């Protein structure tokens, strides 16, 4: 049950499909050719590199390298969260909150999934650790970035209402309750929608990969369900932590609204 191995020629042939993007850009004068070229090269180089790194790590007996790569993944995800913000606290604070949330949630859910459910031998087998952590990080990162952005944007928009509530003597948590609620919704919706659509509209990437690589579809499905649960749990936890964290950064110990801590980021 081995999949057809792709040759470099096959990949070169596939790359012609990307020319459609280039053609659209040229035809409509979108000036995206440069971005397209750079991003295509980035994608190929990054994926080739991670393939080689994973292959090398899989042959190592020591878990040190696995932990190292996991740390790099979490750091990059934290950076990505910070880059997706329209308003930031200092770069350090925004990055710190994103990174901290992802580190905690990634560690917790990956350990639970591996230690209590899959239990590979050894438990730190990079083949499981890195793939599952990657799936969890990718989705949690989106939720965390969304909830943080929604919090800072909504609070800025609703400044008058929030200040009116604070002036009436409401504690910060009560005054910010609606903003927090709305933002948590924003952060959670993508994963809830993904659960409803998976299997019908789209075959999830991980399942597709497994099936293509020759796994039994039912076994692949079971893994996919497990992963969806893990992702949904991780996203919910991550969204909650990041939402509360942003609430505390947006207010201070005197229960004041501190929008002055935010800087709007110009979009390109």
């Amino acid at each position: 049950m081995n999949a057809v191995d792709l040759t470099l020629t096959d990949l070169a042939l596939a790359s012609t499909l990307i020319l459609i993007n280039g053609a659209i850009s040229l035809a409509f004068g979108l000036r995206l050719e440069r971005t397209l070229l750079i991003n295509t090269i980035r994608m190929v180089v990054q994926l080739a590199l991670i393939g080689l790194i994973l292959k090398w790590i899989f042959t190592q007996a020591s878990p040190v390298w696995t932990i190292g790569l996991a740390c790099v993944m979490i750091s990059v995800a934290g950076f990505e969260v910070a880059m997706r913000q329209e308003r930031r606290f200092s770069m350090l604070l925004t990055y710190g909150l994103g990174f901290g949330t992802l580190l905690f949630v990634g560690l917790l859910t990956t350990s639970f999934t591996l230690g209590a459910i899959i239990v590979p031998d050894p438990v730190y087998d990079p083949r499981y650790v890195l793939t599952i952590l990657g799936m969890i990080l990718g989705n949690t990162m989106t939720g965390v970035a969304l909830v943080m952005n929604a919090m800072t944007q909504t609070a800025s928009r609703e400044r008058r209402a929030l200040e009116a509530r604070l002036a009436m003597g409401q504690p910060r948590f009560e005054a910010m309750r609606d903003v927090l609620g709305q933002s948590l919704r924003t952060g959670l919706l993508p994963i809830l929608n993904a659960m409803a659509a998976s299997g019908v509209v789209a075959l999830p990437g991980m399942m597709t990969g497994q099936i293509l690589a020759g796994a039994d579809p039912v076994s692949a499905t079971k893994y996919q369900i497990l992963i969806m649960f893990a992702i949904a749990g991780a996203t919910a936890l991550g969204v909650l932590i990041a939402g509360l964290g942003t609430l505390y950064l947006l207010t201070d110990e005197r229960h004041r609204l501190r929008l002055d801590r935010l800087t709007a980021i110009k979009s390109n």
Partner: protein
Amino acid sequence: MLRIDKLKIPNVPTLSFSIADGTCWSIEGPSGSGKTRILRAIADLEPSSGQIFLNGIERNEIPGFDWRRQVRYVSAEPGWWTPTARQAIPKNCTEAVERLCSRLGLDPELLDRDIDVVSTGERHRLALALALSDDPPVLLLDEPTGNLDAGNTALIEEQIRYLRISDRIIVLVSHDKAQIERLADQRLQLAPDVKKANADAPEPTTLPAPTIEKVGRP
């Protein structure tokens, strides 16, 4: 008594003064001189250094929300957070709000109307009714009659006089000189906007001191 000791707000001269119970102070000065920021700082809605005491208790001795339950700031452009004004009324204050509404010339039915279709002037008076409903000892009123006609202005002024004889402390920011003369016991005059005058010096060292003028009670 509200005692303000060396209150420092950027680009506003350092302020120290005491306001006795049952008196109304006005703060005057050109636009941008920091009148609103002074009120917000007294309500501890924005960071400032220096000490503020209400009846001997410094603001930092109690949580910010407890301070603001006693030192109530009413914005010149009050915000709303519920679909109707009634839903924003604090617990056990419904009766007080309804009573205040009729005193401020508002039909209590307005409380149940969609807040977005209530006129600016009515919204302002609703906010005032809400702010007065739990009877805070200090009221910081930012342009309380800014959007109102003469008749409703008179009603608000009557309410301010009533608060004064009920031993409340009132700090009033108003562009209406005649109103200040009618209401204020003491007038705090801020110097012109120093920041705009010396744009290169963000923190001027020599700020013209504010003048405090005592007015004979009418």
